[in-house]
């Protein structure tokens, strides 16, 4: 009995150890390397070394092992047409030598991993997803502070930055030291921990990563945060409104562009030798005070809540005036005789906004105070612009996309 046990167990132990060793030595990357080497003749193989390839980037606190499988990235003469044996396209590697920059600084993913799934970040607990396709432009901003200088290479990023300003995101969100504090600061939204997104992920189908979260948030802001109506709450609890973020009806490509820009807002802190500082904002000469005022209106993000050109139509739960942010077309009618009062409202803000139903909570959006942000000169121009608005025709359909609950996406639970 004991002899049998002894023999069986020793045999099993040996077999298991061999199994573990075999599993360890026959990893995914060995198969890719074998396949690649099989396509080469003897002369081409000369000088190639097998095994795990790694680029040690002490300055960037990274180890990139991507070239273990992507063997021909920097060897166009050996590259094949299929992944992972393609060469890197364009001249990017000439400008960014791999031994200085590695791969993941631009492409994201888990450079230290040596298995495709883990390396591409498609595993739990790795919060740097692979930036596929043009999303990779997001990474350029980590070093190129003056993205305008490389504008031709990063069209999507530039478009995203422009849209961010155009749509008035700064009216509620701050990035670095610019923008309002009505809602979340977005300075590091591109590195936001997944642990803080759990409640949002619950409202989405997988994949649960930052990219899909941003896209969903931009496309259907209220579906991730639908609020809790009074009748679903235990007695004594206050109702929660849905997300106050206006649904501005972004197109598919606009969402992609904005996602790219938002992904570029990371906490990456690379050494000074890698980074170029942002350029100064070019000074603009305005044709008239009204033009100047319009620029101020757009620069500070008034559009987001008051609508393009102050046309209104943006929802604010339980706000007076029909649960809407007041449109600005009638500013002249209200304040035409009392410009100082208008200036006071802009300077001091109006917190909270007046309620429609006093038994329900305060409206989530409110007029923030602008006195420390908008200079007196800009304020005068802004007021001139606002008073000019009454001349305009009533908003047409194209200028003010209606902020009604649009059809929710298919995977809303």
């Amino acid at each position, binding site marked *: 009995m*004991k002899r049998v*046990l*002894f023999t069986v*167990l*020793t045999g*099993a*132990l040996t077999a*298991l*150890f061999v*199994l*573990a*060793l075999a*599993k*360890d*030595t026959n990893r995914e990357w060995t198969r890719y390397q074998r396949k690649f080497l099989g396509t080469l003749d003897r002369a081409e193989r000369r000088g190639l070394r097998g095994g*795990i390839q*790694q680029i040690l980037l002490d300055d960037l*606190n990274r*180890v990139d*092992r991507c070239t273990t499988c992507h063997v021909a990235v920097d060897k166009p003469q050996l590259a094949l047409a299929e992944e992972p044996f393609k060469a890197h396209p364009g001249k990017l590697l000439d400008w960014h030598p791999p031994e200085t920059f590695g791969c993941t600084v631009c492409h994201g993913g888990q450079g*230290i*991993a*040596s*298995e495709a799934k*883990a390396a591409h970040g498609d595993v*739990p*607990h*790795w*919060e740097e997803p692979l930036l596929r396709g043009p999303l990779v432009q997001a990474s350029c901003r980590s070093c190129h502070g003056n993205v305008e200088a490389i504008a031709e290479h990063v069209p999507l990023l530039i478009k995203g930055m422009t849209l961010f300003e155009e749509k008035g995101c700064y009216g509620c969100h701050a990035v670095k030291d610019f923008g309002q504090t009505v809602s979340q600061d977005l300075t590091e939204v591109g590195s936001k*921990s*997944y*642990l*803080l997104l*759990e*409640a949002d992920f*619950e409202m989405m189908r997988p994949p649960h990563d930052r990219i899909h979260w941003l896209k969903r948030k931009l496309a259907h802001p209220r579906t991730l945060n639908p609020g*809790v109506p009074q009748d*679903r*709450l*235990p*007695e*004594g*609890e206050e109702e929660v409104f849905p997300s106050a973020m206006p649904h501005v009806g972004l197109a598919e490509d606009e969402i992609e562009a904005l996602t790219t820009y938002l992904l570029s807002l990371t906490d990456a802190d690379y050494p000074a030798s890698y980074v170029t500082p942002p350029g100064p904002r070019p000074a603009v000469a305005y044709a008239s005070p009204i033009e100047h005022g319009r620029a101020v209106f757009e620069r500070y993000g008034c559009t987001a809540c008051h609508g393009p050109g102050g046309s209104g139509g943006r929802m604010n739960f339980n706000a007076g005036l029909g649960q809407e942010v007041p449109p600005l077309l009638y500013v002249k009618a209200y304040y035409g005789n009392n410009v100082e009062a208008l200036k006071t409202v802009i300077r001091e803000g109006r917190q909270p906004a007046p309620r429609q139903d006093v038994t329900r909570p305060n409206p989530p959006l409110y007029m923030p105070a602008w006195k420390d942000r908008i200079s007196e000169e800009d304020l005068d121009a802004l007021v001139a612009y606002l008073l000019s608005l009454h001349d305009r025709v009533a908003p047409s359909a194209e200028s003010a996309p209606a902020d009604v609950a649009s059809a929710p996406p298919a995977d809303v639970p």
Partner: protein
Amino acid sequence: MTSVKQYVKKTKVWKSIFRHDFADSPRTRLQRIFGNVFLHLHPVRIAKDAIRVTYTWGLGGISFYLFLVLTVTGILLMFYYRPASALAYRDIKDLSFAVTLGGFLRNMHRWAAHLMVVTVIFHMVRVFLTGAYKPPREYNWVVGVLLLVMTLFLSYTGYLLPWDQLALWAVTVGAQMAANSPLLGNEGPFMLPFISTQNDARFVLVGGTVINDATLIRFYVLHCIAVPFLFTIFLAVHLWRVRKDSFSLQTGEKVDVWPHLVSREFVAALLVTVILFVWSIVMEAPLEAEANLNVTPNPSKAPWYFLGLQELLVYFDPWIAGVVLPTLIIVGLMAIPYVDTNPKGVGVWARMGWQRVGPTRLWVPTERPFAVSVFMLGVIMWFVLIFIGTYDRGPNWEWYWPWEPWSYRRLTKMTLKNLPNLWGLVLLGAYFLSGTPVPKPVRDQMAARGGPKAPGLASAALHVGLGLVIAAAIFIPLLTAPDPDYPARSRYPTLFESLGRSVNAPMVSLLYGWVKHVGPAAGYAMSGLVVLAFGGALGALGIAFGKFKDRLYDELGLIKYSVVMALFLMMMGVLGKIMLRLLFGVKYVFSLPQFNFNI
């Protein structure tokens, strides 16, 4: 070939190393044991019954073997690991991505550590159930408890080293408990005047005010050197005592340890290794995102063996759940051989059977009914709490059944209320009074005055009375006391009504449902009956154990009896408090927030 072998065996070098022949003979069997420093820990001969697998299940030996496995895999891991916050996480990733068999090694270390915690606990249970802690082995039991504590501490210190979110926040839970120690903790009660964040128990444990590099190096040294060093010393004492005191089971003829015991040990070690190999091949050790002090996972859970304590945090103040109760558990375990004077049950597994307990017959352990029931109840409670902490607690430490998906958007929270302190005092007083025995002289005096039945009747009256007081102290405030959260506005006129809004306190919603649907008069009458039944049941329990308690007091004397009864009542009190919260929605029975005294 044979001639070469013969030649080698005759050389001076061979003879200087191996001092005896290896042919199987009674002589060499002895020589193998006492001629070998490692095997010398064994006796030469041993009782046949003692080495039956089903007597010990080899649990002590397996624990020791796992310690060796952990030492070897740990040393190998140390070649690849640097205890610095910038490097640690990357080194762990490297193990599975770049080091030959690195992931396997880490898995094996991890799983062996978990297994060792289990085997050490089971070893303790086995020793208890076979009465192997009784004289002359009391002190070795104490050493064993210390080894258990050190096993847990070894595991806990190792938990931080991968430097991922799991590690950081599990260790944070433990460090927070240190901060809540009475006297020495910066956040605990009765803080000594010179204690600050810079010198409290938490600071000593983590080497700073936050968990950072200093903590990592501290835990690394504790895990790899300091605790194993202490552990080895106590292990030596433990094993040497086993050798000196010999096995608790002495029946059966004596057989040679070589080959009978040594071969069993070898097979057991093989078996454990096979299990570890399979486990390490099939399952990867967890590794979450890199440690980040700015983002707390919700829920943050301690290592599983401490989840019972973390679950207790729900029911008591942190310093009670995290410091006082564990201390009581450890001290209580160590006290067992000194307060258990029952000489029965040494060397045999405790058996179950029908026995007379007071007026009833119960299915209880036959020879040591009280000791075995109480100990096993404690062990089961420990594991049930661990189970609850592991599988029943989700985001915000809310209760989720194992089959329920977690939700970060759940709205229903358990409504909880404190009992008014006065009622809490009555409850606690009646509860702890129920532990008082009636000493023999008093019983004799009663019998002399009121006849032979008088002591029994008095005891019965006392216990039923106390049972009713306990029941009343729970139910009356629930039904009548105003909601303490709304004393002025009196939004809900009674605590009961305010709790009745909660669907998570089953007993209250049951009673509340009666009042609501059957009408107040009938509902309150039915509630009253429940009170009577509850109190009566408690009283019956008291009567059943009344005689036993008196006998126990006569046997143990005042000091031992007080220790036993205090530990027993506190253990049952913890259970009672858990029930009060889960079934009745009672947050604290007695609450003095000024002193952080909430139980």
